[in-house]
């Protein structure tokens, strides 16, 4: 049998998918315990027990300066920035994407501007944002928005612009005006695409969040990682990175589920 025709069953897929992850974990543990056997105070590859005790302090002992539980305060601050940035970018993408895609007049006016902003590397704008908006929350949220909104806007605009011409003509012969075409024909069909664009934008959004927090912040997941780097605290960095990965996966799975739930017509014929 040809390899391309070799289908994998559901149970085997779980086993196969889990194998590389398990291998890496075991490899890490073997090397870490070897290093610890040679040098019990090794900081580069901490053992799970070391990570647990370091994280235990961050999870349950209040910070003497602020009185907050550091880990949860970091998570909350980062998620708030990420949520605000993603939310504002999504709203911009929906509104601008719809009018850009549906109205030739708006497309002619705004399209070059959006394209221009999209080609600027957002991190290059970070100094400008810090100077203009200060070092507070605004500049961090603004960096996320500027980083992901142009791509999302262009994606939604392209999707709306690519709706079959026949549909738009048909809507007009049914008496729909421009507003009705945008709200009843274009908007609902843009929604699943918008959720898809959010999922794709999550990756870059995390990059911009961690970058902004690394450069200037006093709280947040990215801030903490870059802070403890000075003390070679891999026992904090590794759990934090794992936590960020877990959060990212959870957000992605949630968005995918929302799309399947709310827009079944966009996900194949078997609803």
């Amino acid at each position, binding site marked *: 049998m040809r390899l391309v025709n070799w289908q994998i069953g559901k149970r085997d897929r779980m086993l196969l998918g889990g194998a590389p992850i398990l291998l890496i974990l075991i490899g890490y543990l073997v090397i870490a315990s070897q290093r610890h056997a040679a040098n019990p105070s090794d900081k580069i590859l901490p053992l799970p027990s070391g990570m647990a005790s370091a994280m235990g302090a961050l999870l349950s002992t209040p910070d003497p300066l602020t009185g907050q539980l550091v880990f949860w305060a970091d998570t909350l601050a980062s998620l708030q920035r990420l949520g605000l940035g993603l939310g504002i970018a999504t709203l911009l993408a929906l509104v601008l994407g719809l009018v850009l895609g549906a109205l030739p007049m708006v497309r002619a006016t705004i399209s070059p501007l959006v394209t221009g902003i999209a080609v600027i590397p957002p991190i290059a704008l970070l100094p400008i944002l810090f100077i203009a908006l200060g070092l507070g929350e605004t500049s961090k949220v603004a960096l996320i928005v500027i980083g992901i909104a142009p791509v999302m806007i262009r994606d939604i605009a392209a999707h709306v612009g690519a709706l079959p011409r026949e*549909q738009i003509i048909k809507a007009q012969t049914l008496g729909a005006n421009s507003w009705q075409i945008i709200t009843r024909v274009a908007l609902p069909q843009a929604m699943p695409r918008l959720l898809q664009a959010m999922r794709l934008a999550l990756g870059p959004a995390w990059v911009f969040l961690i970058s902004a927090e690394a450069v200037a912040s006093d709280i947040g997941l990215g801030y903490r990682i870059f802070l403890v780097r000075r003390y070679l605290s891999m026992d904090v960095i590794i759990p934090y990175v794992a936590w960020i990965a877990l959060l990212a996966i959870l957000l992605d799975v949630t968005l995918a589920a929302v799309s399947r739930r709310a827009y079944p017509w966009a996900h194949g014929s078997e609803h």
Partner: protein
Amino acid sequence: MTGALLSLQNVWVEYGDKVVLEKMNLDVAEGAFLSIVGPSGAGKSSFLRVIVGQEQPTRGKILLDGQPLAPECGPDRGVVFQRYSVFPHLSALQNTVFGIECAEAPLMARLFGSAKRKATEEGAAMLAAVGLADSMHLYPAQMSGGMQQRLAIAQALIKRPRILLLDEPFGALDPGIRADMHGLITQLWRDYGLTIIMVTHDIKEAFTLGTRVLALDKRRHDPHAPHRYGATAVYDLPLRSRPLSESAPAAAAES
């Protein structure tokens, strides 16, 4: 000419220096079923686009009920395309009442309470008329090609258009379904007193359904500049003034 529902007077369609249609003169009487045939590239689709209002003629006048046609699409001309003429995000019933909602709720395009009940009844009746009474809550992706075209017809008819334009509406359907659709469109045409213009590739279909068949083609051809002459009506055959009996189109299509 007076008395014609739709009247084309010396209509030209040109794209740059490419002439697609030239000197089209045509009067379509109320209640006619006009079939349009012709080879590919003879301007059948351009002809339909001009009547729908999607494009403007370069020269000439088009009158509907004696009034010049507005330069964009409107609810007086319904249309069914070969594909993509139903909304994939709406169920069959929602697709059908869309036309009513647009007219009665300019801002929201949604109806509530008794207005919604009335629109739903009207939509359900229209779906029953095209044979989709059992499929009111299906989405287009769950329907076969023939059902989607039935839905597209119901969606257009709910606006009671002065003219129904069909752009190869049955071209993508298999022969058995196509025969059913011929029976359906003939019956709707008779029941609702429609005026229909249908573009088709299928000459037999054109003669089976139409009361009049119009063939578009180029009268002249310059081998060195083939785009310089456009197509026009080369044959205009009046067939009958009444539709065939109900079973005839299906029988003719099967033969």
